[in-house]
């Protein structure tokens, strides 16, 4: 493999944004395909971080720092990426529930799912049950992901699940829930299909689910 790309992969976990950006630009100028830089450099690097995170040798700050570098580099790559619609594993809709504005964890989940080639639609924060239902109707995702960081808004996850039932579409979509205060017990209690503790496990679980 190209040395620069190997280096991009390594630099990601160290969070060296400027160096990464410079290498990405250098590779683009050399004529390397943006997809190769993305897949073998950035996404591979993110995967390394995710693995270390799962092993307990890397933690949220590294992941966040890595994510930040990756997002910056993707901005540079974006105009060069050829859109291939159907290479995705499936569609996921994700949002933070009503009343809650925390989105750092949600964005990390989205990043990890995108890194595993899911097509993710981000509804943002403070999303009402109606909006979730509408989005499920519109995008017909395989999975709906709900995030909540506040014990006061966790209950709104159940409100969303009830609204899906009400609209008669609960059976059409798998519901995943998560966020710091959420537990497996809580997920079972409100009738969600999936709970994981972190973003890597979520992406892995979805890969297992969607194949």
């Amino acid at each position, binding site marked *: 493999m190209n040395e620069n790309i190997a280096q991009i992969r390594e630099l990601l976990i*160290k*969070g060296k944004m400027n160096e990464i950006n410079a290498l990405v630009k250098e590779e683009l100028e050399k004529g390397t395909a943006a997809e190769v830089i993305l897949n073998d450099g950035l996404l591979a690097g993110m995967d390394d971080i995710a693995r270390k995170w799962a092993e*307990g040798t*890397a*933690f*949220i*700050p*590294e992941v*966040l*720092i890595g*994510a*930040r570098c990756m997002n910056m580099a993707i901005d540079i790559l974006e105009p060069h990426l050829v859109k291939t619609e159907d290479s995705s594993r499936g569609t996921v809709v994700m949002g933070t529930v*009503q*009343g*809650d*504005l*925390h*989105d*750092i964890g949600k*964005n990390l989940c989205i990043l990890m799912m995108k890194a595993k080639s899911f097509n993710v639609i981000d509804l943002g*924060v*403070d999303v009402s049950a109606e909006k979730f239902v509408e989005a499920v109707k519109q995008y017909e995702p395989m999975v709906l992901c709900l995030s909540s960081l*506040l*014990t*006061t*808004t*966790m*209950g709104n996850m159940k409100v969303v699940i009830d609204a899906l039932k009400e609209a008669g579409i609960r059976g059409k979509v798998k519901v995943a829930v998560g966020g710091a205060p959420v537990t497996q017990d809580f997920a079972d209690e409100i009738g969600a299909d999936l709970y994981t503790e972190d973003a890597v496990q979520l992406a892995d679980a979805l890969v297992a689910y969607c194949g």
Partner: protein
Amino acid sequence: MVDEAETFQISGSRDVCFSAHGEKGYALAADLGTTTVVMELIDLEKGKILKEYTFTNPQKSFGADVITRVSWIQRTGVRELQRVLLDKMKDIVQSIPHPIKRMTVCGNPVMTHIFMGVDPAPLAMAPFACPVKEYTEISLDGFPFPVQVLPPISAYVGSDIVMGIYDVRQIQKDLSLLLDLGTNGEMVLCKDGRLYCTSAACGPAFEGGNMSCGQGAAAGAIDEFFYNDGIWNYHTIQEKEATGICGSGYMSLLALAVKHGFIDAGGYMEKELIFHPRAKLSQRDVREFQLAKSAIAAALVCLCRFRETAFEEIRVLYLAGGFGAGVKLQNLFDLGILPVYLRDKVKVIGNSAVHGCVSYAINQDRDVLETIIGRSQSLLLANNRIFSEQFMANMMFVQNDGK
């Protein structure tokens, strides 16, 4: 019943004189903290605190942080949490041999709403409505005098901060910052006579909460670490056998561990540090601390950028809270919590909320209070792009230069 030995402290360090204006009689001032409640018995004529009562907020059994308490209230109503607090305060009131003329109360918005028996749920979630925004005088069963509940600035900046500003009126004259480093990390930027406030929910890590060996600043808590010639040492409060590490202990430990390479700039640790069976530093602790410190650093950057103010321009940084006093300031700069440019500009002001509240109980100058509220504006960080950016950038243990 009130347990004298455990909960009452006779005011010793508090022989500060407040400006009084000849009114005779006695009043009470109370600061309703999430963790600790402080009540002061005041001699109005002398402008002096006669006695200070400090006790653990009995609502603690319903949850350590405000949000957990609010979720409890969502299920069972506000009455019980209101009652446990009022019962405790009533006991104190009944033990006072003097007739009380009034009681002035401040606290974070959730605490003051529960105190009044108003459902605090809207405060804790978007769109952050504040049910009671006004100065409110109420009468409460068992309190044979009017009770004044001071107004908050917004759903997330409470009257404790208003009293902090009221106490340090100087803040309004200079380009300055006021920072209260508690669980909520409230801060105020004063520029051109306007007060811009926000709060960064950093969690209780600075108070030892959520840390593997964390504890409050009580006897036996390690409050400072030392590292000389390759050897670690520590000091415990009252020189007792170590029982855990308190906030200032963690500050000095992390600062030293970063300085001497036990923790790298990204927060990575080769191996756990063990000082005593009840005093360790794990990788998880370091990460928890990074989240908290980054929230504060990021919020400071946001607040200043909001008014296009460079850290270099700030004249004074007022550091409030019980916490501020016990910590070596240098550590706060080394760890990148406080902006490096403010190194020589810090003024530690202690518990300015209590101080302000006592002073208001004596002086009753509503106009000053209303002026402060009128000049204040609060900034929501949750939908602020710069915050998320800065939150990630400030995870690192490097100086906070606001870039």
